[in-house]
C-alpha cells in the first residue's frame, strides 16, 4: 500500500526517483546489511558439522523468503490492477518491479543454495523436491517477465501478466510444503517447523532475521525506485505523445481534400 501511495506523488515531482522516505530506507538497509555481514562472518559460531559454510545461510534463507514476499507483492498488485480499471497501470508498474526484484532474489537463492550444496553435499544440484520446485518457481517468473517484455498495448500487457502472476503465486505453498509432501534431502523446515521447535542458537536466529530485514529493506528500496523509473518513462512517453500528435496532424498528404 505504502509503495503505491509513494507513486502517486511522482507526476508532479522532479525527474528523480529518490525521496526522503527512500533515503531513510536506503540508510536502514545499509546499516542492517553491515550488521548482518559482521555478525555472519565474525560473531556467529561455525556449525559443528558444516563448519564455516553454514554462514551462507544468512544470505540463502533471507533471499528465498524475500523472493516469496516479492512474488506475493506482485500478485496483490496484479489483483488490484485487474480490479481497479482506472488505476491499472500504476498497480501494474508495482507488480512488474516487484517481479523483477523477486526473480533477482530467487536467482540469488539458487546461486547461494548451489554453492552451499557444493560445500556440503559435494554437488551443485540435487533432484530434490524443494530444489526442483524452486527452479520451477524461478522459471515461471522468468516467463512472467517474458510476457511483460512483449510489445503490445500496456493495458493488455497488464491484464495478461496479471493473470499469470495470480496463478504463479500458487506455486509458493508448493515450494514451501514440498519438504513435507516428499521425504527430502533438503534441510527440514528448521525455523518455521510445524511443531515450533527452533534448533538454531539465539544469535544465529537473530542474525538470520536481521538478514531478512536487510533484504526486505533492499527489496523495498529497489521496487520503489524501479517502479518510479518506469513511471517516469511513461510520463516521458505521454509528453512524447503530445509532440507525436502535433507531428501527425501536420502529416497532410494533400491527396484527398
Amino acid at each position, binding site marked *: 500500500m505504502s509503495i503505491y501511495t509513494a507513486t502517486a506523488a511522482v507526476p508532479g515531482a522532479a525527474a528523480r526517483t529518490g525521496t526522503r522516505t527512500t533515503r531513510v530506507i536506503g540508510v536502514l538497509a545499509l546499516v542492517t546489511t553491515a550488521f548482518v555481514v559482521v555478525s555472519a562472518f565474525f560473531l556467529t559460531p561455525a556449525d559443528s558439522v558444516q563448519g564455516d559454510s553454514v554462514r551462507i545461510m544468512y544470505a540463502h534463507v533471507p533471499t528465498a523468503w524475500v523472493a516469496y514476499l516479492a512474488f506475493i507483492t506482485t500478485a496483490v498488485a496484479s489483483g488490484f490492477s485487474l480490479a481497479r480499471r482506472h488505476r491499472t497501470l500504476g498497480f501494474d508498474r508495482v507488480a512488474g518491479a516487484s517481479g523483477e526484484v523477486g526473480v533477482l532474489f530467487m536467482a540469488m537463492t539458487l546461486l547461494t543454495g548451489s554453492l552451499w550444496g557444493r560445500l556440503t553435499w559435494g554437488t551443485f544440484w540435487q533432484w530434490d523436491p524443494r530444489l526442483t520446485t524452486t527452479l520451477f518457481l524461478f522459471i515461471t517468473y*522468468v516467463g512472467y517477465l517474458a510476457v511483460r517484455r512483449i510489445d*503490445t498495448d500496456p493495458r493488455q500487457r497488464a491484464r*495478461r501478466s*496479471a*493473470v499469470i502472476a495470480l496463478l504463479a503465486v500458487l506455486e509458493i505453498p508448493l515450494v514451501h510444503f514440498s519438504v513435507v509432501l516428499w521425504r527430502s534431502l533438503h534441510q527440514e523446515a528448521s525455523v518455521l517447523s510445524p511443531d515450533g521447535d527452533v534448533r538454531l542458537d539465539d544469535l544465529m536466529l537473530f542474525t538470520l532475521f536481521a538478514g531478512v530485514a536487510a533484504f526486505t529493506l533492499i527489496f523495498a528500496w529497489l521496487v520503489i525506485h524501479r517502479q518510479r523509473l518506469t513511471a517516469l518513462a511513461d510520463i516521458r512517453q505521454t509528453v512524447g505523445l503530445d509532440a507525436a500528435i502535433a507531428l501527425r496532424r501536420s502529416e497532410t498528404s494533400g491527396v484527398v481534400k
Partner: protein
Amino acid sequence: MNVALSIARKDLQIEWRTRMLLARVVPFALLVMVLFAVALDSEPLVLRAAAGLVWLAMLFSTMLVVQRAFDIETADAAIDTLLACAVHPARVFFGKALALFVQLFALVVVLVTAAIVLYGVTVSGSRVVLLVTVVISATSGLALVGTLYGAVVANMNGRDSLLPLLALPVLAPLLIGASRATEAAFGSQTIDMANGWAWVGLLGVYGIVFGAAGSAAFSPLTESDS
C-alpha cells in the same frame, strides 16, 4: 444451441476435417515415448519410469494441440468475430476446453495402451479404477490449463515457444501428481494404492482451481488490443 457447445463442435469439426490428431499428434506422442526409451537405453529403467514417460509425452503433445487450437482462431483473425458474437467469454473458454479435453482423452487412451505394449507394464483389478480416475482428472487439468495459457499467448508473435515456457512450469505439479498416481496404478513397488488415491485428490483440486481461474480470467485475457 448453447454457445460453448457450438464452439466445441466447431473445433472438433475442424479436427475431423483435417485429422490432425490421428495423423500427426498420435504418431508424435508415440515417437516421444520410443525416443525416451532410446535415450534411457536400459530395460528396467524404462519400466520404472513408464508412468512418468506417458505423462511427459502427454505434456508435449498438449502443447501441440493447444497451439493448433489457437492458431485456427488467430490465423485469419477469426477470434475477433468469435468474441464479437459470443456474449460471454467464459463460454468461449469452456467451449475450447471441452474440445481440447475430447482430443486429449483420445490421445491418452492410445498412450496408456502403448505403455502396456511398449514398456510392458500391467494393470489389473482395482487398479483399473484408479487408472481411469487419474486419466480423467489429469486430462481435465491439462485441457483447462492448456486453454488458459493458450489464450494468454494467442495473438502474440512467436507463441510457439512462449506457450511451453509459461505452461510447463504450471503443469509440473500435474505431471508429478499424475505420474505418481499412475505409477501406483501400474503396480509399482515404490508407491501404494492409498497414496495413489491421495494424488488423485490433489489432481482434482488442481483442476478445480484452474477451471475457476480460467473462467474468471478469460474475459480480461481476450480483450485483444493488437
